[in-house]
Structures are given as C-alpha cells and as structure tokens.
C-alpha cells in the first residue's frame, strides 16, 4: 500500500521487480501500468431470450467470471483499483459491454426467465454500478484520494466516462439511485468541465436522432437538420403506415428509449438543461412531438397486427414517449426559466421573456401544447409569473392563454375541469 495523506497521483511505491516478485526492488509511481493485474475481464452478454439450457449455462458462466472479477476489483485497495481501472482495457470493455447490452426496464424482454438468471443479472447490475461509483469518486477516504485536477484528466483521457456512458448509467440505474447518480455525474462534470463541451457536441447528434425517426416516417419538422428534401412521389415515400411491421416496432422502441434516456439524464442532472437549451432543444422537441406522435399513434392503431399484445405494447411505448417528452419540456422550462424567476434572479425580466417566448413558440404545435397543458397547466405558470413579476404584459399573457384554449378546441378535446 502506498503512503498516506499524499494524493495517489503523487505517491511512489517500492516493490519487488520481475514477474514473480523475485529479483531487485524498484520504485515506481503508485499509478503505473506494471502494477495492474493481468485479469482478462470477459465482456458481458445479455440474458438469453430463449432459455435453452446451453444458453442459460453460457450466460451464467460469463456472469460468474464477471462477478468474480468485479468482486475482486471492488476489494482492491485504492491504489491497485485505480491501476486496474486506468490500465486494464479488458475491464473497460467489460463495463462498456454491460452499459451497451444490459437489459433496460423498458426492453421488450427485460426480465430473465429463470431465478438463477435473474439472480446473476441482479448481482452483476449492482457490481457494475458500484464499480462506476468508485470510478466517479476521487476521494474515497482521508487517506485515499486523487488530486481533483488529475482525477478529471484520468477519467476524461482514458474514456472512463463519456457522454453515452453517462446517459446509459442514468437510464440503467437512475430510477432508484438518482441521488447517488447525481453526485457521481456532478462530480465528473465539476472535476472535468470538458464533459460540458462533449455534451455540447452530443446534443446535435441527439437532435439528429429525432430527425432520423421523422425521416423514417417520411416526415420533417421545422428546424430539422435533414439535408435532403423529401421526395414528392408518395408511393416511394416511407411512412409509419406502410413500413414493415418490424421497422415500425424498431422505430417505436427507438423513440421510447431515446425519450426515456434524455428524460432520465436531465432529471438526474438538471445542470445539463442549459446545454440542451442552447441548441434550441425545446422548440425542436415540441415540433417533433407535433409531427411524429399523431403519425405513430395512427400507425399503431390502424395497422393490422396479428399479435394484439404487440400492438398493445407499442401503444404503451408511444404513450410513455409522449409522457416523457412532455415531462422533459416541463423540466427544462422549470430549470431554465421558472426556477430563476421564483428564486428572484437578478435578470428576472429576461427569464420571464424567455418563458413567454417558449410558450408563444409552442402555440402552433397544438397537439403538443394541449398534452403539455393537460399535465402542466400553462395558466398555473402564467399565474406564477404574474405574482413574481407584476409588470408582465397582460395583453401578452391573455393572448397566450387564449392560444392554449384555441388549441384545445382545434384538436377537438375538452379541457379537464
């Protein structure tokens, strides 16, 4: 073990040289590739869908290897743990494969069929989380810590965390561990602000995913990044009604996963809302909703499904996606505008103006606006604005509220009393 009260990145250790610890002693940095153990972590494979004994046994065999290795890893002292994490590529591949392939709660067949599979899956799930938690902790105790700046460099330069991994962590573990995850992600972004830059680079790709979903339905929305104009020939144009059933299933699964992942991330780490905001995410999301939701709903309702349970499942996924999109919008408005207003921020009028501007932009997106208003009444927010900022232009708020009422009328739905 290296010496105490010195950060790990500055510690030196003296140990026997040579593979068997024979030979002379040598001094080397505590964080050094020679100090890692050749362990050969195996990659994770998801539980088999059909539970043939051979596949079950294969999953359990991989699982036992992973559990044994992660148990060993979590038992390592601080310095050895970090040597392994930084220099063992097989460990990183094992963790990455879990994030990529572990079943999410929303996956069609997320629950392993046998108790043995389920137990193994749960054990791996916890061990992977604890490993990431330890990797996100630069100070484990008074004696075991890494200089924050160096910690930031280590996790970033070695891709121990990246934006897709952080999103995966949120969607896999966030439901019941949001506070811990918030601390982890907050620490990662605080110690390494480059992650904000990466997030800034990733948001256009997220928006591109929304455009891809629309393009697959033969749709386009305002502000979209589609570079090719849609073909006029409707026969060759894909649509949710005409695409193959498998493509429709994949598309709905993709939408559901994307919406849940974005919402989980922003809910756990609301500090990221600002970055999404800078890319006009709110308006793009509202336009996307307006165009995509009715089209997908229609396809799920009208198409002929031999398997009615599949149809039922797709409907639930569309509903789930709608709900998460509305909740994400509210979360972002709350974080970016409402919160500073209610906290009496210095530039209150700027936030008031921004909020009103957002609502005004939503006015043409009638279907979206109605669904939003149903869950988070716009009138409530306007009332809050009037209390927090009495100078608010009443003509403008009246126009806005009338626009919301018109939206309800225009889509033929009655507002709940």
């Amino acid at each position, binding site marked *: 073990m290296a010496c105490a009260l010195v950060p790990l990145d500055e510690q030196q250790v003296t140990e026997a040289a040579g593979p068997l610890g024979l030979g002379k002693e040598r001094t080397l940095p505590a964080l050094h590739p020679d100090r890692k153990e050749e362990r050969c972590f195996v990659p994770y494979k998801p539980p088999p869908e059909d539970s043939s004994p051979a596949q079950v046994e294969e999953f359990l065999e991989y699982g036992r290897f992973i559990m044994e290795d992660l148990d060993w890893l979590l038992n390592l002292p601080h310095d050895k743990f970090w040597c392994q994490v930084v220099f063992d590529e097989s460990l990183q591949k094992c963790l990455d494969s879990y994030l990529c392939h572990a079943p999410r709660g929303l996956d069609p067949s997320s629950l392993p069929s046998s108790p043995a599979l389920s137990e193994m899956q749960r054990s791996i799930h916890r061990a992977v989380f604890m490993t990431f938690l330890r990797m996100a902790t630069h100070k484990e105790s008074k004696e075991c810590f890494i200089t924050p700046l160096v910690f930031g460099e280590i996790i970033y330069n070695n891709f121990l965390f990246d934006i*897709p991994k952080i999103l995966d962590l949120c969607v896999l573990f966030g439901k019941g561990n949001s506070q811990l995850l918030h601390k982890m992600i907050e620490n990662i972004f605080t110690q390494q602000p480059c992650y904000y830059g990466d997030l800034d680079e990733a948001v256009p790709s997220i928006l591109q995913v929304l455009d891809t979903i629309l393009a697959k339905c033969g749709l386009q929305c305002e502000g979209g990044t589609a570079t090719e104009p849609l073909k006029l020939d409707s026969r060759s144009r894909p649509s949710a009604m005409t695409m193959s059933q498998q493509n429709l299933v994949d598309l709905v699964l993709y939408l559901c996963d994307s919406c849940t992942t974005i919402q989980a991330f922003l809910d756990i780490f609301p500090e990221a809302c600002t970055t999404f905001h800078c890319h006009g995410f709110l308006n793009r999301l509202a336009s996307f909703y307006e165009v995509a939701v009715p089209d997908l709903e229609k396809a799920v309702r009208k198409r002929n499904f031999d398997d009615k349970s599949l149809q039922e499942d797709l409907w639930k996924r569309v509903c789930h996606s709608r709900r998460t999109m509305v909740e994400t919008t509210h979360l972002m408005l709350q974080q970016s505008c409402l919160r500073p207003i209610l906290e009496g921020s210095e530039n209150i009028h700027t936030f008031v103006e921004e909020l009103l501007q957002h609502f005004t932009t939503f006015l043409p997106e009638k279907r979206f606006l109605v669904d939003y208003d149903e869950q988070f009444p716009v009138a409530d927010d306007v009332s809050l604005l009037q209390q927090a900022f009495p100078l608010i232009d009443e003509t403008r708020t009246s126009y806005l509220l009338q626009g919301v009422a018109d939206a309800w009328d225009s889509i033929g739905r009655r507002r709940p009393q």
Partner: protein
Amino acid sequence: MSPPRLTGALRSFSTVSKREEFTEQVYDMKIKRLKRQELFSREGLTWQKIVQFFTQHLDKAEQQSAIQELKSVLQAAKQIVDTEHGQDTIESAAVFLFETFHNKDHVGLEETRAIKQMFGPFPFSAADTSCAAVSRAVAPLGESLVEEFVRSQSSCRIPQRSTAFGRNISFSYDCYALDPQEALPWDGGPDEETSGGGLDF
C-alpha cells in the same frame, strides 16, 4: 441483439466516445480460463503443501495409501487439463480438485460447474475418480483438520466482502418501466374519434 438505442447512435455518430464495436465481439474463453488457472496457481495452497500435510499428520502405513490416492488425483488432473501442459499446471489443477472435493463425497452440480468454470469441458470420469481419491485420502485425518488446513491456505483467494467498496451503500434495483395503465384507448378495435386522446397521467 439489443434493441435500437439512443446511446448506440451517439456511440456511432458522435465524436464524444471511444470508437469500439462490441456487437460482434467473440471472446475466447480459453484465454480467460488459462488466466484464471494461472492466478489460482500463484496464491494459496500448493501441491507440495498438500503432500507435506499428509506426511505430517499420518503414520508411515497410512502415508503410503494417501500418497497413492494423491497420485490418482494428479492423474485425474492431467486428464482434466491438457496433456500438453507442464507439471506445474497439472499440480495446480490437482490442488483445485483437492480443494473442491476435500469435504464432498460425490461430484454434485456445484462441483461440476466449478471445474468447468476453471478448465472448460472435462471428462466426468476424471472428476469422479479425483473425488473418490480425495475422499479416501482425507478419511483417516478427520474432517475438521482438513477443513482448517484448506481454509488457512486458501484464505488469500477469497475476497473479503466486509472490505469491499460499496458494501454499506444501499442500492436500488428499480428501473424505468412502461406504465401498465396506458392501455389501448378503445375496446374491440381502432376508432378514429379517440385519436389524440389525453395522456391519462
């Protein structure tokens, strides 16, 4: 195959992560098993210590038959690993068999699984032979003496759960799931009038 995911698209199309492809990754379990065998042989009990243990605790007459049984274990180990491996590997496999069977009277599912996990597919007769041989060898010694010997020699291999990172951290297995209440908004079939129904939160 995993369903299409947002993070999959980000990994493929954005520049914020390391480029790696896992989907078609085939992992050679032979490498993992060899590594595991190597780690096993490096720490804890050795074949020499086992032989020494028997010579220390048995009288001359009993020693002879115990040594014969241990030879059978070595022979079985040779069948389980590969003939191409050296004496060290065979002895290490014999240690593993001894540890596995020192308190067992037959080859159960757990033992079969443990041997396969360590060496891959193996001839069951070899496991059976080694189990019987270990059983006969330890019989004159008494269960607690052998148990104590194996435990004291193998303790460094067993992870101390009491010191593991995260042992005191409460963890929730809850996960995001579909709301079962979000049923189809019609009875018996599609209906145009219900389109655009409320979110029914």
